[in-house]
């Protein structure tokens, strides 16, 4: 075991990839920051209300990062979770006479379940419409609170009881601030663990390209519901603190305007970083505090600042600071060596005894795909009209045809990316017809896309890690607390991803954001993402399009090598017939949705029908 660990660590170090750790630099800075406020809480006790509000809204902001920043679900109903926390707290402290040790777990639990419920609309509606759906939830939620008089005290509200922990009572003021800081530390740590873990990657993937996320086998529907549940639970913790600050819970406070403020704060601060949650909360709470002397003009100041901020810091305050930081870093001459990927991890070091990928030497060829009577119709047009063929396992098959012949649509029918496809699809003996995209992906279907569908904001390494997701062996609870085996699995995954990148000559770009890469490299990243999932059959959609022939050939060679290594079959759509003929064992030709040829490259290129329809003289 430790032998493997050492190999992995050394390899990653040589590649210049930081090892997954329990705590990173950011953690230390964050901890120091919180420490500072903790120590100063007594000195600035007259600001304790504003400080408390900032901490609470930072916690709510962090919970919103889960839903909105990572998973990209625009929610205007987030404060329903805060309200849940507030009223649960009020009831638990007065009716049950219990303290924080009861309030926090129950608030989290109830809000979690509530979030599972509230997450459902996100499966049906997107973006702006989701905003309205969640708005509706918040609105109705407040009405329910009003009417549920036993729980909420109706319009009159309910008082909140004492602040205590396991029977030990605390006074409010600086002590409450300190307790809040500890809770903030914990919630931030948990959210940070998701950001650094597979669930965070999965959420980011579904935000940037849901299509590709499904194709990578990620359970998109469950991930969406989960983000509401987890985000909701964390927001409820903020609610518990809010209850103790306000000491009185009134339903009318938790309506839509509060939801808007919470989203606004996060966008202002920067919705992808925890620091953004802090900055956003600070902005929203301290601007009024600092402008008390000129309160008459607070709207002008607040509104004006918002306008200016959006003009100069569209990525939020965090983005602005990062930009400044980058400028400073670039200005300072650095003696960091160019990351050289070519030396360190060579293809020959592929661990044939890897515990991760299936033992390769003895593996059976995979990728036997049987298609029977596949048909797809768009309105009256039959894009795919009764196509049947069989691809042997482990082989490379080409699929050619003129534009509009139905090649990509056939792909989409196989992967599940088009609705209304009929016919039978069987992969290595398993029937995958009518199954959802991610189920087919998990059954072994891998693909690339004509328009790439890469994930903006994620770097190259993360794309590879996405593909590996299904084999990463830790659950979401372990991930929240970054338990020891999480680190082990992350390190293993990083190592394997690095190997794959190295094989595809992408290792030196591991840290680049994909939107910054040239087109050719982007195409390779698309392939890497698909390969990392260890597919049984890899469907490549015009992998050479837009590339100069030499580069295309080089990439195809690598793909073939790796596919052989994992014994997968390959089905490739291409217009470059020479290329296809070069790499394929067999070629299928489509025309107007039907197959017109199916044989070896020599046979097909000499087929008269094919020449007439496609190849020309």
């Amino acid at each position, binding site marked *: 075991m430790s032998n493997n660990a050492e190999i992995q660590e050394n390899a990653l170090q040589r590649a210049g990839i930081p090892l997954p*750790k*329990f*705590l990173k630099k950011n953690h*230390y800075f964050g*901890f120091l920051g919180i*420490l500072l406020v*903790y*120590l100063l809480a*007594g000195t600035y*006790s*007259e*600001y*304790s*209300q*504003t400080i408390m*509000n900032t901490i609470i809204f930072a916690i709510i902001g962090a919970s919103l990062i889960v839903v909105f920043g990572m998973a990209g679900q625009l929610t205007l109903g987030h404060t329903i979770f805060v309200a849940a926390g507030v009223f649960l707290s009020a009831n638990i402290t007065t009716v049950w006479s219990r303290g924080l040790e009861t309030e926090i777990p129950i608030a989290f639990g109830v809000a979690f379940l509530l979030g599972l419920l509230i997450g459902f609309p996100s499966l049906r509606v997107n973006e702006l419409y989701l905003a309205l759906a969640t708005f509706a939830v918040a609105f109705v939620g407040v009405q329910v609170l*009003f009417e549920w008089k036993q729980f909420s005290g*109706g*319009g*009159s*509200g309910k008082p909140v009881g004492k602040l205590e922990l396991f029977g030990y009572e*605390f*006074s409010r*003021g*600086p*002590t409450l601030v*300190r307790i809040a800081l500890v809770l903030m530390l914990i919630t931030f740590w948990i959210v940070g663990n998701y950001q650094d873990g597979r669930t965070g990657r999965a959420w980011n993937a579904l935000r940037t390209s849901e299509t590709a996320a499904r194709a990578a086998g990620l359970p998109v529907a469950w991930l969406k519901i989960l983000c509401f549940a987890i985000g909701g639970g964390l927001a409820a913790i903020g609610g518990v603190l809010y209850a103790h*600050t*306000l*000491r*009185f819970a*009134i339903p*009318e*406070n938790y309506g839509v305007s509060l939801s808007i403020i919470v989203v606004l704060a996060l966008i202002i601060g920067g919705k992808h970083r925890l620091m953004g949650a802090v900055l956003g909360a600070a902005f929203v709470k301290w601007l*009024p*505090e600092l402008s*008390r002397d000129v*309160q*008459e003009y*607070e*709207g002008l100041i607040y509104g004006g600042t918002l306008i200016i901020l959006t003009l100069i810091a569209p990525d939020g305050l965090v983005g602005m600071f990062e930009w400044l930081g980058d400028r400073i870093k670039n200005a300072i001459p650095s003696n960091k060596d160019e990351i050289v990927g070519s030396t360190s991890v060579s293809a020959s070091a592929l661990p044939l005894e890897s515990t991760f990928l299936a033992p390769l030497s003895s593996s059976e060829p995979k990728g036997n795909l049987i298609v029977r009577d596949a048909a797809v119709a768009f309105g009256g047009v039959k894009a795919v009209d009764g196509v049947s063929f069989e691809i042997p396992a482990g082989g490379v098959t080409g699929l050619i045809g003129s534009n509009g012949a139905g090649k990509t649509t056939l792909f989409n029918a196989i992967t599940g990316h088009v609705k209304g496809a009929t016919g039978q699809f069987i992969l290595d003996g398993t029937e995958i017809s009518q199954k959802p995209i991610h189920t087919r992906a998990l059954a072994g279907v891998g693909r690339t896309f004509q328009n790439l569908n890469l994930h903006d904001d994620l770097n190259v390494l993360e794309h590879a890690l996405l593909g590996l997701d299904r084999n990463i062996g830790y659950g979401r609870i372990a991930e929240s607390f970054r338990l020891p085996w999480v680190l082990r699995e992350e390190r293993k995954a990083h190592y394997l991803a690095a190997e794959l990148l190295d094989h595809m000559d992408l290792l030196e770009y591991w840290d680049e954001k994909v939107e910054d890469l040239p087109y050719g490299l982007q195409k390779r990243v698309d392939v890497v993402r698909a390969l990392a999932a260890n597919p049984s059959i890899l469907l490549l959609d015009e992998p050479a399009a837009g590339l100069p022939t030499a580069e295309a050939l080089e990439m195809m060679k690598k793909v073939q090598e790796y596919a052989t290594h994992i014994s997968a079959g390959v089905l490739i759509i291409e217009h470059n017939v020479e290329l296809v003929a070069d790499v394929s064992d067999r070629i299928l030709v489509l025309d107007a949705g039907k197959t017109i040829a199916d044989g070896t490259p020599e046979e097909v290129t000499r087929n008269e029908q094919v020449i007439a329809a496609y190849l020309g003289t």
Partner: protein
Amino acid sequence: MKSKLWKLLAIFAVLGLVAAGCGDDDDSSSSSASESSSSESSSSESSSSEDSSSESAEEECELARGVTDDKILFGSSQPMTGNLAALGEQAVLAMEVTRDRINEGGGINGRMIEFIVQDDAYNPEKTVSNAQYFIEQENVFAIWASIGSATLKAALPLHDESNTPSLFPWAQDLSFYDVNNHPLFFSVNPPAYAQTKGFGNYLVDNFGTDGVKVGLMTINSVDGEQTVQGYKDSTGGDLLVDEQTWERDSTTYGPQILSFIDSGVTDVYVGTGDTQFAQFLLEADQLGLEARFWGSTGTISANTIELAGELSEGAYGVNVISSATGDKPGLNAYREAMFAAGAEEAQISTASLLAYTGGLVLEEMLTLAGECLTVESFVAAGETIKDFDTGGIMRPLNFSAENHLGNNDVIILQVQDGAWEELVVGQE
């Protein structure tokens, strides 16, 4: 290895901090202990100075927070923005009038009155934050003239814990008046409960019960339920046939009015503000609801008549204070001062009159408390006030150790010839 060292350091730091944090608890509790001992000593001193009242106090007098030899500082949290902004403006104007009157008369015992206003936009979170600002940063003596039950309810614990009087708000929640729970609360504004009870009784007394059907429209908030309960507990309680609520963000009361028409009500109690009441009258006319309309305290202003025009004629009002446009010495003085300070017609209203009247009592309390102004002497002074004359704005006010609500009057008014006229003062 290095990373393990960092982890250890971090753990030790956390433990150390938790210990330090617990340690600070003792500090804060000891400081509050010293606060209470100092207030004890000042109250014993004030009682001894009362014994030797005519002689100048030889003992030191520890003045209350917010009080210096030449100044008394108050804080006031008002809705200065949002849809209740009008009320905040009116209250502040009345407070300015009070302050100027007192200061131009030389102040009280040589001390000038000053107050700071902070906006809370009717949001309890801000009211609480403002309270902390007033008490801990600005060190005010008392919080004066707050608006709203929901907002005050949130801030009251903070006021009480920091020994800060809460004075003469426009807030009507029953819990405020319990002197045992809130010994520093003083008001001249009876609870919403009492108002509808008085209305219910008046209705039966003057219109009987034959064929009388009553509808209530109240807001779904802190006072709303108490308002309904007050009516149900009156002699007319059984006449209630239709209960409706309204939201702060309603744009129309059409549906409620149509329901009242269906129920055949003869009398409708409208628990809203003046703008909403005017709109209600308009829409009732449009939809053909024929009934007697009874507006709550907030509806009784000159602006109601201005906005509703002729439709306001004959409308009734249930107030806790005389009509601001009435003709009585106290009211005339109030209006004179308000106009001199630049008030518009529309700002002659319950909100400003209530704050003004509270200001009259405040002035009396401060004067009676004497040179050595402490929270104790102030509260004690207030409790001695009997038969306080407000020039007719309210019936003579009476306070005591068990009762910090000087006025329990319900006044019934009606719009006659374009002005609010009193029908009955002191309806029970």
